[in-house]
């Protein structure tokens, strides 16, 4: 069953490219259907998964993939965001050839992400992460604009350094471990006598992941790439790709091999906290809509990393929950940005104002995304941030708990600035003729807003069905 997650996009990819007659719109629809099906399939899983305990499965002999409760949360997020990116691409990329290429790349990225989530081998994880990174370079520069190419090249350079760091780490791991499978690796680490080499290898890999996920002192490429990318690409990139290649992998590895040392936990938490504060502070003075969202993304990812660093099952579940919520509300905000860009043709916030009057659906859904990001009840973001603070407190990290609470005030601050400048306040002169965007963009906005509200309102259900089971990974 789970191999369908890889097979279906692959078959669509083959079918779309084999015959030349297939219009890009058909590819769009097929991909959208597949991603929706993925989200639905994954969400229906937990009950059966727990019953049959069918966690590790093989495809060909030894083709080991595994699914657990955490993978399910991530797979659902992948399905939703890929669906949204599909819709956005359909209505924002005008050139049919480019659209077809975008769809192909999206499908390859989808296969890559789905496989990454199921992998349990550190080199294979690196390989798929690199594949997705290469796709991201192309996605960013898909319309070959001047700034987009600049962003793509910066990402490429920083990503190359991340690659080198991760590969050096893998080379060091080969010295003390006969296998690169995560469980075997953890075992080898526990018996190997030289702690410096182990810490060095873990540290190198972590630094690579920090670059890939865009955490504070490593974040440099992220605002440039996000703000310059085509809007469909930025939805995909900000919503899920960076999160899977960086944050998901970090969380997955923290389960088996990072979790041991207190030093490492302290460092991960420090990086997370730094990202929270600097991302929020930097977002406050931004003039570019997407750039502000990019900094906000750094800040929110900081929360996930902070919770991951705690190392308790509850904190990890909270991080997984925030992972999902961040994927939904950040992609919602990026879709809002795409809508505004489609109508106004610019991302400069000084030229915007009062758009909510002219674009009611965009304005209201952006409000939902904003409230969820700022962590106000009853939206989903409130619950996950609340859980993170609780987990920090329960683990005795009082300083970080207070810090996370105070930092949400900053989040509220920059989000208020954003709303005031773009959607509310007085309508700017010359924007009187702006109309609401078409259904191609309104539908994904509504879908995402509905998910955010539903997850927030049905929190107890979501918590018991999806989030608390994540804790059971620690027992396995």
């Amino acid at each position: 069953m789970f191999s369908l997650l890889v097979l279906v996009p692959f078959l669509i990819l083959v079918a779309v490219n084999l015959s030349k007659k297939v219009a890009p719109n058909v590819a769009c629809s097929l991909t959208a259907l597949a991603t929706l099906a993925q989200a639905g399939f994954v969400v229906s899983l937990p009950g059966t998964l727990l019953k049959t305990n069918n966690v590790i499965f093989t495809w060909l002999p030894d083709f080991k993939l595994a699914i657990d409760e955490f993978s399910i949360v991530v797979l659902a997020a992948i399905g939703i965001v890929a669906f949204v990116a599909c819709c956005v691409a359909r209505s924002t990329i005008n050139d049919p050839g480019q659209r077809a290429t975008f769809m192909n790349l999206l499908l390859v990225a989808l296969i890559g992400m789905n496989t990454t989530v199921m992998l349990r081998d550190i080199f294979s994880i690196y390989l798929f992460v690199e594949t997705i990174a290469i796709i991201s370079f192309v996605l960013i520069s898909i319309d070959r604009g001047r700034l987009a190419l600049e962003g793509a090249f910066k990402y490429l350079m920083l990503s190359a350094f991340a690659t080198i760091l991760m590969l050096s780490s893998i080379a060091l791991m080969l010295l003390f471990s006969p296998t690169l499978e995560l469980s075997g690796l953890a075992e080898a680490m526990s018996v190997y006598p030289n702690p410096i080499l182990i810490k060095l290898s873990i540290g190198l890999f972590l630094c690579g992941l920090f670059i890939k996920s865009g955490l504070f002192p490593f974040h440099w490429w992220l605002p440039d790439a996000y703000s310059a990318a085509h809007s469909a690409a930025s939805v995909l990139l900000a919503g899920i790709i960076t999160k899977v290649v960086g944050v998901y992998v970090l969380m997955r590895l923290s389960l088996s091999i990072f979790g041991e040392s207190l030093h490492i936990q302290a460092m991960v938490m420090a990086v997370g906290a730094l990202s929270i504060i600097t991302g929020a502070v930097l977002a406050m003075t931004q003039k570019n809509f997407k750039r502000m969202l990019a900094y906000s993304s750094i800040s929110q990812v900081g929360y996930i990393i902070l919770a991951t660093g705690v190392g308790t099952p509850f904190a990890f579940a909270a991080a997984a929950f925030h992972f999902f919520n961040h994927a939904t509300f950040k992609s919602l905000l990026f879709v809002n940005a795409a809508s505004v860009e489609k109508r106004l043709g610019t991302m400069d916030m000084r030229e915007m104002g009062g758009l909510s009057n002219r674009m009611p659906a965009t304005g209201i859904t952006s409000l939902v995304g904003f409230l969820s990001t700022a962590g106000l009840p009853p939206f989903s973001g409130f619950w996950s941030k609340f859980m993170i603070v609780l987990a920090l407190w329960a683990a005795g990290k009082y300083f970080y708990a207070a810090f996370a609470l105070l930092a949400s005030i900053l989040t509220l601050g920059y989000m208020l600035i954003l709303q005031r400048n773009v959607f509310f306040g007085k309508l700017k002169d010359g924007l009187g003729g702006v109309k609401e965007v078409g259904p191609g963009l309104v539908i994904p906005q509504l879908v995402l807003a509905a998910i955010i509200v539903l997850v927030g309102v049905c929190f107890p259900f979501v918590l018991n069905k999806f989030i608390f089971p994540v804790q059971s990974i620690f027992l396995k």
Partner: protein
Amino acid sequence: MMIDLILLSVLLIMVIWTVMAIRLVRSAVGLALTSVVLSILMFRLNASLAAVFELSVCAGLISVIFITTISFTRRMSKSDFKTRRRQRLSKFWPLPLIIIAAAILLFWRHFPSEVIFIRVPAENVRDVLWNTRHIDLFGQVLVLLAGAFGVVALFKENKK
């Protein structure tokens, strides 16, 4: 041991030449030569299959890619070349010094003096690739697909 030292030194010199060469084409050729020396080192380390790949793909294919890319960009004029030479010398002269200083420092400190290795029974690389790591083969297919679509996206309508 001695041969290794010599080969490594040659590798390092090749790299320095690659970095410091003034014309880009020479840099690309330097890179190809670096690959050749590297594959010889790999042969010495009993990694014959990887060495063959290194020789054919890196020394061959990647050099071709670089030279093609370079040929698409504008060629340097003679006067340009002379000014560039002065600039480069002023920029790159620290590199050999840094390398020598770092080498002396590292050897003098007996860098990593004691590292314990976990030895494992040898396995054939073909077995590893085909039997235990075919997920990597799938990944390679995916990378190639990504590259193909990337080339389509980046080059397709450049003629327009």
